[in-house]
């Protein structure tokens, strides 16, 4: 636990982001920690442990839950947790939308964005975790942000259009 304590916050944030809408965060965390516990002799150093945990979490979510779609019951559970943590309903919707659109990004861009924006890793650390270069990570984050912005823009336009259509329908009736 001593080795784990400094890794706790970024690791849990990352798992929460992976798990949103698809699974219970605690299940994922438990799975990963059990694996780390069993292979602890292979991990040397505090930095290595955090990287190991992040990679293990990503691999588990890829191998087991990659194809899972967002499920209403999980989304509601996560929203309840956010509400319990003091997030306003409006912000909850924004977070929900963010995660849904994040899910549509390519895996490596999504991963880099989550690690950078939510878990707070530096680009250098992300590059080490992903066996990549800092430049490549910068590109992934930049493209991920751009694409996310486009997706959210499309969503906003669609919802505005549907609102207008509904208004027209009401007027026509």
């Amino acid at each position: 636990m001593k080795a784990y304590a400094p890794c706790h916050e970024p690791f849990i944030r990352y798992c929460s982001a992976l798990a949103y809408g698809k699974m219970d965060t605690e299940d994922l965390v438990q799975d990963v920690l059990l694996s780390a516990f069993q292979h602890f002799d292979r991990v040397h150093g505090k930095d290595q442990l955090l990287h190991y945990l992040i990679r293990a979490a990503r691999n588990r979510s890829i191998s087991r839950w990659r194809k899972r779609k967002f499920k209403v019951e999980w989304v509601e559970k996560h929203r309840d947790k956010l509400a319990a943590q003091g997030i306003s309903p409006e912000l909850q919707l924004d977070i929900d939308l963010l995660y849904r659109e994040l899910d549509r990004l390519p895996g490596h861009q999504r991963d880099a964005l989550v690690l950078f924006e939510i878990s707070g890793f530096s680009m250098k650390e992300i590059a080490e975790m992903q066996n990549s270069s800092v430049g490549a990570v910068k590109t992934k984050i930049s493209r991920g942000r751009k694409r996310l912005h486009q997706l959210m823009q499309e969503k906003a336009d669609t919802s505005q259009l549907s609102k207008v259509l509904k208004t027209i329908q009401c007027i026509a009736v």
Partner: protein
Amino acid sequence: MRPGNQANDAWEALRQVPPELTIERIELLVTSFPPLPLWKSWLHYFNLNSILMSAIALSIVLASLLFPGSVKEKDAISPEAVTKIEMSDALPSWPAGGEPDRGAVIAEIKEGDERQNELPNLAEDTYTLSSSRQGPFPPIAQLSAAPLSVSSPQLAPAQPFTLNRCAPIFPMGKQEIRQFKHQLLEQLQEDQLIAGKKENVLIEVPEGEIKVNGQKLDSALFSKYADFLYPTIPPCQGRYLVIKHQFFGVGSYTEDGDFIGLSIYPKQSPSPFEFDDFETSLLSHHDLSAARVGERSLLNDQVGAQAEGLMGSLNQDTSFAMASNASFAVLNGPQLRRLKRKLLAQLRKDQLINKEKKEVIIGFHEDRMVVNGKPLVGGQGAAYRALIGQFGIDAGPRRELHLAPRFIIIGDFGEYGEMLSGQAHGKSMIVSKRLPSGLYADRK
């Protein structure tokens, strides 16, 4: 609210909100884990590697002290004589009545890689080489010789590798294999059959033709490569030569789906010869990790008795057909790619898939057409039937087409997603008679 602001607010909220699980909760989780076996935790304190290395060094020193070598001058064997003995031991056993001049053969080997075109007439004896690991490999049909273990790195094996009905592959030493591989890759690159020397290469050497990465060589190139390959690797139905970076293998598949031949792992094997399967080196590690079955390689399990091609994938485009199937023509790579393009274009036009959806399973049955689980209604089914039929493919009760960015697979699939027969073209695909294959391989 503008999307940019929405995203920023959401990011900020997610950064600020406390972690979903507290560290106390984690402590509770960890205390519920089953304890590690005692031996494992005890073993953690020992560095096995350094213990082994020290023990080996000590035993070598002790052995040299206990058994000092003393060779009298008159008993000493001249280096030349030793070389002759070693070389003659390395020669294959000639059949009675056909033995060539030994002096001539020794001279041939001494010259190194300048192999003569005329090979001695070796008997079609069949041998089996036992694998260094005791795996559940079924016995190779019709083999009679006792297992021969090849362990000495200095001597070439006494017998060549062969299967029934095939002229044997001429045994090569480690250095000879390297030179052979280097020359072959240079030639392939020069003839623009490969882009670079680090590219994976699959060469099929049946009788009458040579294929390099699925591409049949024209007559000029065929004679060139036949001259180069045949002295060492005589043609035989089902014989393959596989080259990857750090790997070289040449051999054939048995009726049971095992591979027998010659392979070399320069960095992994202490001896230059090791009987082994065409193992995971042919599949990317990513594909293999989820699919390894016990001691046997995935590739072994994939090759059925009737396989006409190599099952699995290389890290580049490859096409193969699996089991002769009379109900549809075997298409080549360009044809399969054309079919895939046409199908995807039509599916997008009919809005059965959108731009994001890049994986499609089409059920091509006699009574219905299904796209990603949804039956097609009206004339749509007939249109797709006609489109696929243009390529000579008939419907079947289990027939499916799997379209993915990496590949196209057409075949008959079983209950669990295993591919019973068909053909495929692409990269990094799982094709197996025992495991979920194609797009089913991605689904957990």
